[in-house]
C-alpha cells in the first residue's frame, strides 16, 4: 500500500476543506471497498479523511412518509433497525444481504453509494425508493445521482450526510448474487406508490438504472405477468466471465418478476 496522510476531523466543514486542500484526498467511511483497493494499489490517495468522529452522520429517523438514514450508518444498523424493518422491510433485507456480517459491522450507506460500484445493492434501493441524497451543500434527487461506472453527481469535496427514502406501499429487492463475491450479478428493487411503480436495477449496466417500460406495465397491472415479456436489449449490459450480456438482460426480467411477486405477496 502507498503511504498517505491520515486526518480525523470533528466536523463536516473541516472534513470538506481537508479533502479539498489535499493533492488527492479521499473520504474514508467504512473502508470496505477503499481499503482493499488501496491494498491492491488500485487506489493511492495522498490523504484520507476519516468521517468516524464527524458528528451527526449516524442514525435512523422515521418521519411520516420517509426514512432518513445518516451516511455513516452501517449496514448492520440498517438491517437490525426495528424502525426500518417496520417502515421499509425491503430496505432492511437488502442491507442484510450486503457482504458478510463482519463487513456489515463496518460498511456504511454513504460509502456504498459514493463509491457507486455497478454491482452494489444500495444504489437499487436509492433509485427504487425515490430517495434524496443529502450532502454538505445540497440535496440530490436519486435519479440524478448515479452517472456512470463508479461515478456520481458528487463534486470534489462534497460529502454525503444522509439519504432520505420515501416509504412505499409495498417493495421488494431480489438479487442474483455472484456466487463467490455475493455482489449482485443483477438485482432488482421494485417499489409501489399508489398507482406509480418504480423498478430500479443494479449489477446489469455500468450504474444502477430504472426501467420505465416495466414501471408503466406494473402501474397498470402489479403482477409478475405484466413484465414477463419485457426483456431489455443487450447493448449496454455488462459482460464478464461470470455472466454474458444476454444472460444479464434475461436476469433483469427474472429478478424484477421475483421482486414484484414478493412485493405483491
Amino acid at each position, binding site marked *: *500500500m*502507498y*503511504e*498517505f*496522510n*491520515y486526518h*480525523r476531523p470533528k466536523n463536516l466543514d473541516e472534513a470538506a476543506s481537508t479533502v479539498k486542500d489535499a493533492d488527492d484526498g479521499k473520504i*474514508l467511511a467504512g*473502508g*470496505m471497498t477503499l*481499503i*482493499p483497493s*488501496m*491494498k*491492491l494499489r488500485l487506489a493511492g490517495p495522498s490523504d*484520507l479523511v*476519516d468521517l*468516524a468522529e464527524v458528528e451527526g452522520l449516524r442514525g435512523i429517523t422515521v418521519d411520516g412518509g420517509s426514512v432518513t438514514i445518516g451516511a455513516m450508518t452501517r449496514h*448492520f444498523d440498517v438491517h437490525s433497525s426495528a424502525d426500518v424493518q417496520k417502515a421499509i422491510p425491503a430496505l432492511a433485507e437488502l442491507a442484510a444481504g450486503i*457482504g*458478510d*456480517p*463482519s*463487513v456489515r*459491522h*463496518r460498511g456504511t450507506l454513504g460509502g456504498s453509494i459514493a463509491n457507486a460500484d455497478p454491482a452494489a445493492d444500495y444504489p437499487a434501493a436509492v433509485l427504487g425508493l425515490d430517495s434524496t441524497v443529502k450532502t454538505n451543500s445540497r440535496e440530490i434527487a436519486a435519479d440524478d445521482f448515479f452517472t456512470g461506472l463508479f461515478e456520481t453527481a458528487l463534486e470534489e469535496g462534497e460529502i454525503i450526510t444522509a439519504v432520505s427514502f420515501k416509504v412505499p406501499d409495498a417493495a421488494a429487492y431480489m438479487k442474483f448474487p455472484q456466487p463467490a*463475491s*455475493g455482489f449482485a450479478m443483477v438485482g432488482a428493487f421494485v417499489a409501489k406508490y399508489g398507482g406509480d411503480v418504480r423498478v430500479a436495477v443494479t449489477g446489469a449496466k455500468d450504474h444502477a438504472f430504472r426501467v420505465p417500460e416495466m414501471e408503466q406495465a406494473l402501474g397498470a397491472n402489479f403482477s409478475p405477468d405484466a413484465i414477463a415479456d419485457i426483456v431489455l436489449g443487450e447493448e449496454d449490459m455488462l459482460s464478464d466471465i461470470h455472466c454474458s450480456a444476454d444472460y444479464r438482460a434475461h436476469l433483469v426480467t427474472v429478478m424484477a418478476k421475483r421482486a414484484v411477486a414478493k412485493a405483491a405477496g
Partner: protein
Amino acid sequence: MSIKVSMNVNGKPVSAEVEPRTLLVQYLREHLGLTGTHVGCDTSQCGCCNVHLNGEAIKSCTIFAVQCEGQDVTTIEGLAEEDGTLHPMQQAFWEHHGLQCGFCTPGMVMVGCDIARRLPDADEKTIRHELEGNICRCTGYQHIVEAIESGIKAMNAKG
C-alpha cells in the same frame, strides 16, 4: 508520517507510533506479537483475521490501526481465562474437532462468539449463513458448524 495510536487490546492499554497505512492486523501481529490473528487472503474475503472491535466481529485486515484509537479490541488470545481455561467457544471447537489445519480457526472462533452474542437461538442453517465471510480451505465446515452450535449453547448456559 507516523501517528501515535492508543487502544485497549485484550483489556490492556497499548500504544505505539505507527504509519497510517498500518493495518490493525499488522499492528496486532507485528507490533504486539499477537500472532493468533491470521491473514489468509488479504482481500477481505477469508475471515481468518476476525477480531472484536468494541465487541463486534470485524476483519482486522480491512481497518487501519489508527481508526481504532481509543477503542477496545479483543483477539483470540483474549478469550481464554488467565489460568488457561478455554472460552466456551474454544472448548466447543476442541470437543467437536472444529478444525483440521487450524489456520481459519481464530477467525471462526471470533465469529462464533459474535453469532452467539447477536443470535443466541441460531440454528444450523443460520450459523451456516452467518459464516459467509469465513473460509475454511480444509472444508471442515460440518464440524465447525457443530462446534459453533454447541459453543452458543455453552455460552448461553454460562450467561
